[in-house]
């Protein structure tokens, strides 16, 4: 997927900014993803050139880590904890419920671009499982109903934003 001139420029700027940092590739990738929501393929050669790495090396790092996305994601990322403590409290059912109600598998985004569904392995909230993370907020004791409420909140927020834009 192509990216705009502006996006290209912002990637170049970030590369310049992170270049002096020792071992700065991960912080750089986080910064690019923070800006654009993902790390576009077109960023790879810019990063490689700037950090004096091969494209293969940069690509290898991006693909190694679960966090880095190579295609655009939804406005909100919803992560469901799949790890053991959450399993003991019913996260398998929650996971099935989420996939079914959103009509998504992990890694997919709703058609309106609102929500991307992701798995996560532990959010450190294991005493009050099941846990869900939405962007930078973590939620405890999430059952199916609570999940639906949270999703309604995200979808409504989008709908009202659209209304006020009109």
């Amino acid at each position, binding site marked *: 997927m192509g990216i705009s001139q502006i996006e290209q420029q912002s990637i170049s700027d970030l590369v310049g900014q992170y270049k002096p940092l*020792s071992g700065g590739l991960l912080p750089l990738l986080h910064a690019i993803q923070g800006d654009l929501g993902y790390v576009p393929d077109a960023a790879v050669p810019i990063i490689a050139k700037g950090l004096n790495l091969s494209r293969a090396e940069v690509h290898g790092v991006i693909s190694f880590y679960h966090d880095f996305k190579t295609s655009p994601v939804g406005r909100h990322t919803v992560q469901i904890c799949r*790890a*053991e403590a959450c*399993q*003991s409290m019913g996260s398998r059912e929650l996971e099935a419920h989420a996939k079914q109600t959103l009509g998504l598998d992990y890694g997919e985004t709703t058609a309106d671009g609102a929500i991307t569904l992701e798995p996560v392995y532990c959010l450190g909230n294991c*005493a009050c499982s099941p846990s869900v993370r939405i962007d930078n907020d973590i939620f405890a004791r999430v059952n199916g109903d609570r999940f639906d409420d949270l999703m309604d909140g995200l979808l409504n927020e989008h709908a009202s934003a659209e209304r006020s834009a009109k």
Partner: protein
Amino acid sequence: MIFYIPQDTTALALGSEAVASALQTAGIEPIRNGSRGLFWLEPLLEVETDQGRIAFGPVSAKDIPSIIAALDVDPASHALYQGAVAEIPYLKSQQRLTYARAGLGDPVCLENYQALNGFQGLKKALEMTGQQIVDEVKDSGLRGRGGAAFPAGIKWQTVHDAGASTGADKEPCQKYIVCNADEGDSGTFADRLVMEADPYQLIEGMIIAGLAVGATQGYIYLRSEYPVAHRLLNTAIERATQANFLGDNIQDSGKQFHLEVRLGAGAYICGEETSLLESLEGKRGMVRAKPPLPAIEGLFGKPTVVNNVLTLVAVSSILEQGAATYQNFGMGRSRGTLAIQLAGNIKRGGLIELAFGVTLREIVEDYGQGTYSGRPLRAIQVGGPLGAFLPESQWDTPMDYEAFAAIKAMIGHGGIVVFDDGADMAAQARFAMEFCVVESCGKCTPCRIGSVRGVEVIDRIVANENRDNNLILLHELCDTMEFGSLCAMGGMTPYPVRSALSHFPEDFLIQDATGAGQDAALASSQNVTGSLSGDAAGAAQGEN
């Protein structure tokens, strides 16, 4: 009256932000403290009154008006009243060293930290030689809290001595202190809690480590799943730098130490120390073969201390209170206190800091009060995803590294995950293999491919396809992974699998209509138990 409402991840996840807003609406500006770790009571509202500091919990925003009304008349009359905070038995019975300050005040308030004996350990360390600090840590008996339980003082000695032979004329050898804050194990949150409730204590421990071994740069490798800890750590580092506890001339001592937080990117294996170092260098988190030890060739090839958050934090109190005080807690070779994290299907989950030696049953029954669901307890997994599932017959094992190794289990980072009788242990065994598929770094075949095969074989066993042969196959596969893997990811994934098979064989029979396979499966699983070999837990984790 002063009101406190925590800004800890779990408290926030249970709605503490809404409680704070409700207080503000009522004209009260609460202090956003850290959590005490009594997560079953979160959001826990604390109020400093004429009669001392009292608590209400778990509160939600709608309870605020009635609590405020009750405070004017008789606080104890409120249904959520918990009495004096310090007298809550769950807290009072603990032996808190590391978490002594947790929840008392605003975690990033530097004045508060200093008023509560903060930086006293550092003050002493600044007047000692590096060797004296290393000796103090050795004398304390402190063992690494990240899982492998390697003596911290011995690791520090290696880094202290490394690079010394380069001669007096040369520049001092660059060394690093790396804090392992990757805390990937399910059921663990001790690192998170201390980083969110008392971040200066970690900063202090890392500065002391730097002074001890002669390192001037530190990194905290923090998992990206911890956004709250990330924010609080960055604030704390900024303020500590402004107050001259970090930087080029710490408290005008002429000593320097710089500290930076680096975020992981969602890879469990990056908690393994060599993978972590690769990641910090900006590479794929591929595990390195050892030797060379990180203590000799670590970050960017330089001598590096890699320690868990809790190990480094403990150093602050060891320096402050003396090695002897710390060493007085514990049993056998497990000295000091252990941060036990009670999680999963449990009524009263939370952080329980106690001297080593308490039994699993005491933790789960006395502190935990049984399952959250109210159903019977069935299995307990200790030590994260690579830890064994323990049946009731093993719950009287004391929390002690050696006692756990003796039953082929491990304390690891101290996480306890409780399952009720609804747990399907075959599904749990399958998940252990699946997790290894997802998180393997890919360097060795037994781990990378073996785990994929493991999932398939367990599926066939449960589907009653050629069960007896597949049980033997699974058993052999576990052997291959255990002995043919470079690190504990592949090497210990067999532990939860085998323990599920040997202690809960009935769960692997669910779809067996004839009943004929049952005896064979049971017999075969006994073979598996019998062949659980030696101290591979120690071998696989003996990585320092």
